[in-house]
């Protein structure tokens, strides 16, 4: 049904292998976007993005109107997804360790939803509307390829993959990127019920995180915080882009792999 709604035509006379047409630099990485107006991608109802995340780089949390599949091309890291209504099952107790901390130093309590290790070859599925983030805790670059299925039934907006950032300031990143390069997108055609490629690109350039669209007072009320902190989560003067450098190591709760192995062995024995 969704495909019928969006697609009025799929007139493809020949196919071409495509490379990303737009590169956007961030403080700790690079994002490359394929031309979403290319006929073959529009026909398939997909959008492609490749993120190259430097060591200690954090891809800021975002959600989208389309479900995503992430493939880890290279490197390793951590992936977190904030699934609505799910409990924060990763909880620090006195004996828990924070990943990234030297030794077994105890830290103050935190709790959050499950964090998963990812490595080369992994595929991660992210439902529409679920916020996710990625951190590179490896020794090399972490490269992830993301496909947005915009023709999926879960998407009730139009055929454009829309990225809603919970933090950061993509606008500043795109305007101020040091080596920003924008290529023209030949062969792109607009449709009557959607934005033209130029409009679409303009709207991408005017991005910021969703909290920046609210009044500070409203945010302060909602979070029960002071106005200053409300302003800070709007990230209006943030120049770092969507992949930011983590100052120290990112400390998140994660089970020790040895512990997991022990548990697995124990289960085997029980079985």
């Amino acid at each position: 049904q969704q495909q019928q709604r969006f697609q009025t035509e799929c007139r493809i006379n020949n196919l071409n292998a495509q490379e990303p047409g737009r590169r956007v630099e961030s403080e700790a990485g690079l994002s490359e976007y394929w031309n979403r107006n290319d006929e073959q991608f529009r026909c398939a109802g997909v959008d492609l993005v490749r993120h190259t995340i430097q060591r200690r780089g954090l891809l800021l949390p975002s959600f989208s109107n389309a479900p995503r599949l992430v493939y880890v091309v290279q490197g390793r890291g951590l992936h977190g997804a904030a699934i609505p209504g799910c409990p924060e099952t990763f909880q620090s107790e006195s004996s828990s360790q924070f990943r990234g901390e030297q030794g077994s130093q105890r830290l103050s309590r935190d709790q959050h939803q499950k964090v998963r290790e990812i490595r080369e070859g992994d595929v991660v599925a992210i439902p529409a509307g679920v916020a996710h983030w990625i951190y590179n805790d490896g020794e090399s670059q972490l490269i992830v390829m993301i496909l947005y299925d915009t023709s999926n039934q879960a998407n009730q907006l139009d055929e454009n993959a829309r990225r809603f950032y919970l933090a950061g300031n993509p606008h500043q990143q795109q305007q101020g990127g040091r080596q920003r390069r924008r290529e023209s997108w030949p062969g792109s055609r607009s449709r009557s019920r959607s934005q033209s490629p130029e409009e679409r690109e303009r709207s991408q350039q005017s991005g910021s995180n969703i909290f920046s669209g609210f009044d500070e007072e409203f945010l302060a009320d909602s979070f029960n915080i002071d106005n200053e902190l409300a302003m800070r989560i709007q990230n209006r003067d943030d120049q770092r882009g969507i992949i930011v450098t983590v100052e120290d190591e990112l400390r998140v709760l994660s089970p020790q792999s040895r512990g997991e192995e022990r548990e697995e062995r124990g289960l085997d024995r029980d079985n």
Partner: protein
Amino acid sequence: GVEETFCTLRLKHNIADAQRADVYNERGGRITSLNSFNLPILRYIQLSAERGVLYRNALVAPHYNLNSHSVIYVIRGNARLQVVGENGQNVFDGEIREGQALTVPQNFAVIKKAGNQGFEWVAFKTNDNAKINALAGRLSTMRALPEDVLINAYRIDREEARRLKYNRDETTLFSSDSSGS
């Protein structure tokens, strides 16, 4: 066998009755949801509804509709609403009052704050099992993220990250006196 299924399906369900509320906050208000779990015919038509009552100056947590659009019709009172789109663009900032309707597209974030007379609404949603994702409160995205992600994303310190995560202990409906923690 069609008459045993479709023809006898229940077609109505009352959502104005306060005793049927799914979410209730004695200082915030109440919300009653109607979906295909409590009215199965909605599975056929892929729609659902929500009836909300917000007490004076209370708030609905900032949230977005995960899998549906939402069309809000104001039954009584007034509220200030802000709706934000994909680029942090404020697409609505104003008061809506009795008799008016407002569409909130899928994934657009919204905050509602009731006016002095309170606010009552019905929202029609374009999915038979419409879901929301709260951005603040006990069952919110903020709580789901590790402190260090917040610290580095917003360039704040650990104490501020904790306030952001834990200062609101209510869910969905917030009282206005900033004592939710």
